[in-house]
């Protein structure tokens, strides 16, 4: 297999080969067992990675079911192996109850913290100059050093004001540091564009309002997230919690 073969396989699997190119490739598939094998391997690899990287709702629900039963295998032994003092059990039960109350109680006000946690993914823009700066921004952002991440993201935006990636994360960092109007300016711009972050930006826009207990505006933004968006479920859940 050479680089051209790999590119052809890739294009074939993406449905990107047409006309004569497609016919030629399919003819080669008939004649070349190695090519067929390589195609099979890549198809299997892509299907597996897709399934693992982007689990659908059914997979997620299934994993939750398994997680809910995990204790039935793990717990019993622990009880037998080491006698846990009663006060520890009581304290644990109390902690679990408090955690439950904090999470589910309708009167609690801290939905913002429940929903605002986000990790910055590593930079996708590959300009040599930008790479180090953005990597540093990722590090700071994920260490929750938002105030320090903001200027680095700002520099990236000075170089390229259309960089939705930097603008989206700067919007969140501004929100985390309570600079809400500035955060909204960034998130609004991302939402107005057509990047992958469009509806994530709508979600965080809702959180900027939630942060100041403006539930109405928060709802308005959550309702902008369409059913086919990846964060639709999360948005609906927050809407219910509101």
């Amino acid at each position, binding site marked *: 297999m050479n680089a051209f073969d790999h590119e052809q396989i890739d294009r074939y699997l993406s449905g990107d080969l047409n006309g004569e190119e497609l016919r030629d490739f399919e003819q080669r598939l008939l004649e070349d067992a190695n090519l067929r094998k390589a195609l099979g391997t890549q198809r299997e690899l892509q299907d597996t990675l897709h399934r693992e990287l982007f689990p659908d709702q059914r997979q997620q629900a299934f994993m939750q079911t398994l997680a809910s039963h*995990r204790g*039935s295998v793990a*717990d019993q032994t622990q009880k037998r192996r080491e006698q846990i003092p009663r006060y520890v059990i009581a304290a644990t039960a109390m902690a679990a109850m408090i955690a439950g109350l904090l999470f589910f109680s309708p009167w609690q006000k801290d939905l913002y913290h429940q929903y605002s946690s986000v990790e910055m993914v590593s930079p996708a823009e590959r300009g040599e100059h930008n790479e180090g700066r953005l990597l540093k921004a990722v590090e700071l952002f994920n260490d929750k050093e938002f105030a320090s991440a903001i200027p680095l993201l700002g520099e990236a935006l000075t170089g390229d004001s259309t960089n939705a990636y930097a603008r989206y994360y700067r919007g969140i960092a501004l929100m985390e540091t309570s600079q809400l109007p500035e955060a909204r300016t960034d998130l609004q711009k991302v939402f107005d564009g057509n990047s992958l972050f469009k509806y994530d930006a709508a979600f965080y826009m809702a959180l900027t309002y939630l942060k100041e207990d403006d539930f109405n505006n928060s709802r308005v933004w959550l309702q902008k997230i369409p059913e086919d968006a990846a964060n639709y479920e999360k948005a609906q859940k927050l809407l219910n919690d509101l």
Partner: protein
Amino acid sequence: MSIPKHKHEDQRYLDALVNNDTRVIGEIYHRFSQRVRHFVQQNNGSADDAADIFQEALVDIYNQARFKGLELTCPFEPFLLLICKRKWLNELKKNNRRGVTIDIDEQSNIGEDTFFLAEQLWADGEKTKLFKAMFAQMGERCQEIIRWSLSNKPQEEVAAALGVTYGYLRKKKSECMAGLIASINTNLSKWGLK
């Protein structure tokens, strides 16, 4: 020539996993997990290890049944137990821990079919692990490109989000994929796979 096999009545367990039937999944845990726990604990493992192994086995069965149309032609219990056993043996081997002294299947009447199906399922699950491990070892740049490319977004949109041209994205993705496949092929035999 292989003789077509009939679905075993225990196919209902696979259907329950695929359909996330919580009642029957509860039954699976109730009926089968204790033997696995006992086996793992008797062989140098903890109840937590058993819970992990049991869950992993169910996920592998789910993946095969849902995405590759696996149909059960043998009873479910020995099939599941064999997969768990194989997984635990592998774990022990990886960590240089003492081998198995007490067998899980010594009292079961296990047919050849069951061994074959369980071995195949174990290998598929292990392959998924290998794919994920090799993917995780790639440079961040390749991981990012593959991750975005495999999302269901239009590739032009992905290229724009990554700040590259569509042509560059396509070329880079196929380079990254080729690298990933090469590292997988190098490691297949080390992982006990063909």
